[in-house]
Structure formats: C-alpha cells, structure tokens
C-alpha cells in the first residue's frame, strides 16, 4: 500500500466504543424551563440552597448567547430539543454496593475496558462510574474513608457533606463565567466529589468514567475536588459514547481547589464519539475546567489526551493565587475526519514567584481542525512570575488545519515569559526515511506520533500512559492491508 493510501486509511478508522446499552431508562421529556430544573433537583432530593443556586444560574443563562469567538464551525444547538435528565430505572435509589448494580451496567463497563469488579480486586484505582445523568457505582469508598478521603458521587456529597459543597461549589467557576458554565450550573445532574483532608496523600488513584448512553440527552456533570493543606491526589477521567447520527451535548464543569502546599494532578483521556467520516454525529464537548491554587506553594497539573468528540471546546486553567504556586497544562489533541478542537489553557498569575508550564500538542488528520488558544496573564501583584509555553502542531495529509492563538498579558515587569511554537507535517519524507531503515509504515506513523506526544504522555499516570498510547495507536494506525 502506498503511503498516501495508508494515511487515508489511518484517518478513516472507526470508533470502538460505539455500542448502545439496552436498559430501561428514566428520561425526562425534552426541553428546558424552571420546572425541569425543579424536577431534577427534586429527583436528587437536594437542599433548598442548591435549587436556588440552579434557578439563579438558569435566569442568568437566559440572558446569555453562545460564545462565537472560537475557531469552530457549529450548527446552532436547539437547547429545547435536549432531555436534561436520564438515569437507569434500576438506579432509582441511588448508587449501591457493586453487588447490587444492574448486571447490564457492569457489562457495559466491562465492554469499555473498565471492569468495575476487576478494578475493585486490583487495588490501586478507585472508580466512580457515571452513566448518563447519574453515578451508578463507586468503588473503594470505604477503604478511602479510612484515610479520611471522601470520594463519592456529587449528589451524595450534597446530602452528606453539604457544608463543603456549599463552601466551594461555584467558587472557582461561577455560573456567570460563560454560557455553558451557566447552563451546567442550572441542570447539572451528577459527577464526582473529592475531598482530601490535611496532610493526606490519597492512597490510590481516583478516577471517574463517564458514559453517555441515551439518545437526545445531554450530559452535564460537575466535578469538585478539594485538596486541603499538604495533601496530594491524582485523579483520572475517561469518557465514551455510542455512535449516533445526531450530535449530543456534553457540557461539564470541573473545579479544583488546592490549599497550602497541596497538589492536584488531573488527567483526562477524552474519547467521546467523534462522528463518522462524513462528519455526521458526534459529541459536542463544551467543558469549563479550572483550578485555583489558593494556598502557598500549591500545585495543579492538568494533563489531557483529547481524541474524541466532534467539537472540543475546553481550556483547563489555573488561577495562581498562592505565592510560589505552580500551574501546569499538558495536552494532546487529535482531530481527524471532520473533528474540530479549540482547546488550550489560561494561566492567571496573581501570587509572587508563581510558575506555569504549558505544553500543547495538536495533531490534525483528514479534514480535522486543531486550534490551540491560550492565555498567560501576569497581574501587577505577581512579582517574578514565570511561564514557559510550547505549542506544536503535527499535520497528517493536506486537507487538515492547525491554528495557534497565544494571548500574553503582562502587567509586572519582573515576569519572565517564553513562548515557542512549531508546525510540522508527517511527511512522506519522514515515512520514507523510516521505511528505508526497514520500519513498516504502520510502525513509523505510530513512532512519529508517539514521539511527538512524548512530553505529554510522560505526565500521565502509568496505567493511563499505556492506555493513551494504545488509544493513539487505535485512532491512527488502522490495519495495513
């Protein structure tokens, strides 16, 4: 097979998690109004303060319009044609122990490569499994509780730890922040809640696996992670969805809070259904992720591998409030077929001697469009702030595109900012060079892409680094005929 034919096949590889679980669901009718919000809140037995917060967010959202500044072509979304709540009927009374979870749900996660029982036996990773709008199982809750760590579905945290929720919810991402954050605040259904007490190093990796299953529903989860003084946590999230011809909306909010000397490492492997080779279907992924380094010498590190979704719109950011705090962003975004990604980060330096690092890698194939958009802001108070940014784009074929929009705002003359950017093409030259040395085209593409992503992959926890490499391989290699 010639190199160009191979590359053509590479970009037309099909999605592997596209099945639908046939299970009885409780889905509320499509449409959005105050009654829908009250219904969601009622289904979750929420305290009054939360309902009021949702309603305020909803009123605010009504006055907003979707953002238009991103480099994305999007058909207008009809927010009245979406159902805002969908849960397996068997899950009516909330998450139970693993033994009580519907076998069909367990089977679903087995098929996705996240066997909940097996993971439960293999100590090391605790999983919260979110299916459409609700959490269906959380493993290792008791073991984590021994260490004082709270890891539970958001709706459970609202009931059992209302003070923590009330104190921190919306404190990093206000519902006034943007259109999708406001929508999420109004209708969010579930997600994960994590609290690490002072001085505790979380004894295992925490992870949440998000699955969208029902048609015509949106997923609006909310994750809140609080790392108290001198604590450490590593958290991973994974996402998949069935193949459907219609676009589906996913609008999540993630808030991280790191207090004095606390460290949060947040890793994402996002593999939502990307749409087919004609660009039909796929998830619209509008996500607001932000962390606040509130304490001195605290650290928040975002690592993301984005291979799915028809549209990706997300900018995991860090507000560096505490002196000597550190923010990091490591990203690989792959777009192929007609996928579009507009992703990047914001590093807001407020404290003295704050440091941030940005490493962003965009890979575009087919008609894919990858955009890096990043802001580095140094406030007048941020004495001796430092930032290093590096944005690299890799193009496969000649119909795709890569775009870079770095914004730098420096209000303190002691700041040191460095920005590097490059664009390259997996060219016939590189492939031929490898083949002349005896390496097959398939191995060569995989080697070149993994080489390109290396700086990011090495930031992932070990289990995920292997998964990410495999995912890239599945997404890119295809089978050579």
């Amino acid at each position, binding site marked *: 097979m*010639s*190199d*160009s034919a191979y590359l053509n096949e590479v970009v037309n590889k099909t999605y592997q998690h596209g099945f639908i679980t046939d299970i009885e669901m409780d889905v509320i009718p499509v449409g959005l109004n105050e009654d829908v919000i009250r219904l969601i809140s009622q289904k979750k037995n929420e305290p009054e303060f939360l309902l009021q917060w949702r309603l305020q967010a909803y009123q605010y959202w009504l006055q907003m319009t979707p953002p238009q500044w991103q480099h994305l072509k999007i058909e207008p979304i009809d927010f009245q044609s979406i159902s805002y709540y969908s849960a397996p009927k068997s899950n009516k009374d909330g998450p139970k122990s693993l033994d009580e979870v519907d076998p069909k749900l367990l089977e679903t996660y087995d098929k996705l490569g996240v066997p909940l029982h097996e993971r439960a036996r293999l100590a090391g990773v605790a999983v919260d499994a979110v299916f459409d709008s609700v959490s269906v199982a959380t493993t290792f809750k008791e073991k984590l509780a021994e260490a004082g760590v709270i890891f539970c579905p958001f709706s459970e945290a609202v009931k059992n730890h209302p003070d923590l929720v009330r104190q921190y919810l919306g404190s990093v991402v206000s519902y006034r922040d943007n259109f999708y954050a406001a929508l999420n605040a109004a209708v969010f259904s579930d997600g994960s809640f994590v609290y690490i007490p002072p001085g505790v190093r979380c004894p295992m990796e925490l992870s949440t696996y998000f699955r969208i299953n029902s048609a015509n529903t949106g997923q609006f989860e909310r994750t809140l992670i609080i790392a108290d003084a001198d604590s450490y946590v590593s958290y991973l999230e994974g996402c998949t969805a069935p193949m459907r011809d219609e676009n589906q909306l996913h609008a999540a909010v993630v808030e991280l809070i790191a207090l004095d000397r606390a460290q949060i490492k947040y890793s994402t492997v996002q593999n939502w259904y990307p749409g087919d080779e004609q660009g039909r279907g796929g998830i619209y992924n509008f996500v607001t992720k932000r962390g606040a380094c509130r304490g001195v010498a605290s650290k928040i590190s975002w690592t993301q591998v984005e291979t799915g979704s028809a549209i990706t719109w997300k900018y995991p950011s860090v507000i560096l409030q505490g002196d000597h705090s550190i923010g990091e962003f490591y990203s690989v975004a792959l777009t192929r077929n007609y996928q579009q990604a507009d992703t990047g980060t914001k590093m807001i330096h407020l404290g003295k001697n704050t440091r941030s690092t940005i490493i962003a890698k965009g890979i575009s194939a087919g008609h894919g469009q990858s955009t890096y958009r990043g802001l580095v802001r140094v406030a007048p108070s941020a004495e001796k702030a430092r930032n290093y940014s590096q944005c*690299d784009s890799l193009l496969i074929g000649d119909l795709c595109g890569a775009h870079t929009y770095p914004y730098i705002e420096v209000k303190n003359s002691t700041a040191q900012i460095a920005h590097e950017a490059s664009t*390259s093409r997996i*060219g*016939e*030259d*590189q492939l*031929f*060079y*490898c*083949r*002349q*040395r*005896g*390496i*097959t*085209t398939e*191995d060569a593409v995989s*080697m*070149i892409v*993994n*080489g*390109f*992503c*290396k*700086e990011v992959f090495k930031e992932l926890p070990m289990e995920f680094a292997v998964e990410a490499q495999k995912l890239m391989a599945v997404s890119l290699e295809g089978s050579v005929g």
Partner: protein
Amino acid sequence: MLKINNLWATVKDAAILKGINLQINPGEVHAIMGPNGSGKSTLANVLSGRPEYIVSQGEVEFLNQPLLSLTPEERAAQGLFLAFQYPVEIPGVNNLYFLKTAYNSIRKQKGLQPLDAFDFMKLVKDKIALLDMDEKFLHRSVNEGFSGGEKKRNEILQMLILEPRLAILDETDSGLDIDALQIVAKGVNSLRSPERAILVVTHYERLLRYIEPDFVHVLVKGQILKSGDKNLALSLEETGYQELIAEPRAEKH
C-alpha cells in the same frame, strides 16, 4: 550483486533517468559523479524505492532478485541501505530507540528473533567509538538539532549497525569539514568487504580521496556518459563537467 538494465525514471512527470545501465559486483566500490541535476540523487532514490519516483522502463536485479517490485522496507531487509543527502528530523523519537526499531524490524523480516536491549547497546557502543561520536547522541531525538556533520555521521552509524550488502551514499560529503569527512570515510571503509558493495554518489572528487572507488561513472542528463577507474575522477576535477557535456556521446554502456 546489482544489475541495472536500461532504467528510465520520472519525477513529477519529468523524465530524469534515461536509460541507465550499471553492474556492481560484490566487493566493489563504484562512484557516480555528475553535475547538479544530472540525476545522481534520483538514481539513489529509485533504487531505494522512494514513492514519488516512478520507473517508466527497465529492470533492476539485486542479489539475483527483481528489486523494483519490493517495498522500501523489503529492500532494506534485503540489505539495501541509503545514506540520505538530507536526513530528516523525527522529534521525540530517541535515536537509540529508532536504531533498535530499525535493526529489529529488519531481523523480523528475515525471520530472526529481536536482539535485546543489552546486546544491542553493546553493538552500538562499538560503532559509535569508531565514528568518534559521543554517547549522548543516542539519547537525543533522531537528527533533531544535529549539525550537518552530525547528521551525516548519524547516517553512517545507522549503516554500520544495519550492515547492508549494498550501501548507497547520496552526497554524504556535502556540508562536511575535512575532519568530519575523514571520520565518515573511516566508517565507510570499515564496512568494505568481499561480500559488500558501495555506491558513492557525489558531485566532487574530494570524498573519493578517502573512499577509493574501483569504478567511476559520469552521469549527465540522465545517462552515463563515461566510465573509468579512479583516474577519471581526478581528470574531472581538473577539467570540470563542461567539457564532457559539450562532447558528443562518447560511449554507451
């Protein structure tokens, strides 16, 4: 070892090679010289199977097997090696990892077990010493940020490790200072043996002072106009190509 019979080739619809005939036997060193644009590099690329180069006519036999129907990686496994004129950079791919992948890919195609990291490292250490290279080279990305001379040395390192039957050096001398040239030549000469052959493609006679050829061919406008021994290279250096080009076709091979 290599038999080229009436080879015609085009690049982007332009005819570059127009009837090349050449035979290379084991143990021989051949040099192809010629002015810019004469088709020297095209010949090197056609032999190694670069996709953009289309053979319109003729046959090539390598080790008594037809060569042109093989993929580039199959040719490499047969023992054909091209030292590139412009080696490409592969960011993030460790040089040692690349070498080992290449080495073991070729072993796999031959049905051999891969060499483990320990044995492979031993093999590499011997070779880099010969080329006066720092071990740090192995841990850098393939050719990334290498100087022109370092890139060429890296090509020769790959050649010494892959131990080809036929090594084609495409303008390996370009961009080298005299010290680097001598080191590269030392590496190439260490590979000379009765089972191997070397084809040196060059614009200048300079390299041939260090890698002494058994035969010299002059390629002009896609045809070999003249062949001779190493003295032909020396006389070319004095007279230049102009005289030859002006002459009517002297002889046909």
